């Protein structure tokens, strides 16, 4: 079973559908107890940094999420689910993120369309099992105005150019988080989800 952490942030049905399409067994739940049973965890998210953190704490999901991250068990963060893993965000200067990784989230420089919305390419900076059979430079669907700046540059697994280069994926062994929406990124996205399902099965 793959747990999709449900804390009321965005269209989670499409993540469920995406995982089902690649033979995963997703379970949408906000029960903190489900982390222990899961072969892997998907941490999705859309919307506001601050509201998401409030919801996460209200539902007592922050601690099990942190524990899961430090256990090294399979994990995939999506969109806001990437940003929340860091310390802070320019979106809400007083809000504290999960802080599993050191670094802030920054807003795109003005002078271009914000949000960064649509298909953009991702250059892999790591050989990760998450990216197997997906050529570097493949296009994925993005919708966001902020992006993380990891203090530890070794975490950076993918970068994207939107008139400035930003970190669009981080990865370490069986854990990764991406700024784009694999569930909306057609073949390349489904391949990434399929790779994640495989990682989950291998680590059962």
């Amino acid at each position, binding site marked *: 079973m793959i747990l999709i952490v449900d804390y009321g942030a965005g269209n989670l049905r499409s993540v469920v559908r995406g995982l089902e399409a690649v033979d995963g067994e997703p379970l949408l739940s906000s029960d903190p107890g489900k982390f222990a049973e899961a072969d892997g965890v998907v941490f999705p998210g859309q*919307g506001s940094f601050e509201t998401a953190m409030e919801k996460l704490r209200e539902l007592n999901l922050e601690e099990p999420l942190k524990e899961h991250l430090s256990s090294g068990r399979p994990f995939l963060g999506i969109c806001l689910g990437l940003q929340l893993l860091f310390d802070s965000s320019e979106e809400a200067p007083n809000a504290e993120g999960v802080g599993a990784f050191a670094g802030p989230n920054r807003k795109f420089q003005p002078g271009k369309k914000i949000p960064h919305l*649509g298909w953009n390419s991702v250059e892999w900076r790591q050989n990760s099992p998450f990216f197997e059979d997906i050529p570097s430079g493949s*296009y994925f669907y993005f919708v966001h105005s902020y992006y993380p700046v990891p203090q530890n540059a070794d975490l950076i697994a993918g970068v994207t150019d939107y008139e400035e280069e930003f970190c669009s994926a981080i990865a370490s062994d069986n854990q990764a988080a991406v700024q784009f929406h694999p569930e909306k990124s057609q073949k390349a996205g489904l391949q990434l989800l399929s790779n994640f399902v495989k990682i989950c099965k291998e680590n059962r």
Partner: protein
Amino acid sequence: MLAKRIIPCLDVDGGRVVKGVNFVDIRDAGDPVEVAKRYDEQGADEVTFLDITASSDQRETMVDVVSRTADQVFIPLTVGGGIRKVSDMQRMLEAGADKISINTAAVQNPELVDEGFRFFGSQCIVVAIDARSHSQTKGEGPWEVFTHGGRTPTGIDAIEWAREIEQRGAGEILLTSMDCDGTKDGYDLPLTRAISEAVSIPVIASGGAGTLHHLYEALTEGKADAALVASIFHFGQHTVQEAHQYLQDRNVPVRDV
């Protein structure tokens, strides 16, 4: 680099594609799900359904269409038509739509844009603007916002309205030129450019596409971020691949499928 998007748009009435689609090898050219799947295979960057069903008791049909599409098509799906309140938006989002397009209801009740933004986030909220020029000279403003499928004048200036809905939390603007729609003479470039320059959110150009060159013009001279396309795809004149190729050959960034 961020790719310019090509978005096929299907008019749906009572769960069926209006006038059908002229694909030779499709099982049911009137089924929006089948057609959306085909466009997905062709490399469409998104798909938009516009529900033009007149009677509200047939709206449930659209929920089913959206749900069946989302089960099989893994690109962003926008649904518009007949969305009047937050609960309508929620129903479509739960069925599997990624974005909701509102038009008349937003003009009648601009608070709906704020509410949609608060409940679902701006990434879900597309405001459609139907605009018509007031000038005698072709391609000049001012442009007025029309509602009810372009039938009802509102007295609202299109550029001011675009700025207002951006402030209220809209994530994108779907801009249709009532002067150009159906002409196949090309998109309204001055209008598209004026709106695109007035806001920082993405603008989808709509109305008037008759050739691939028209798409190119909208995405370059018109400064649009995406082009909505109907008849030139539906009637088999061109495929989405051909559109992408045409643009790529002219150095417009498009998705490498």
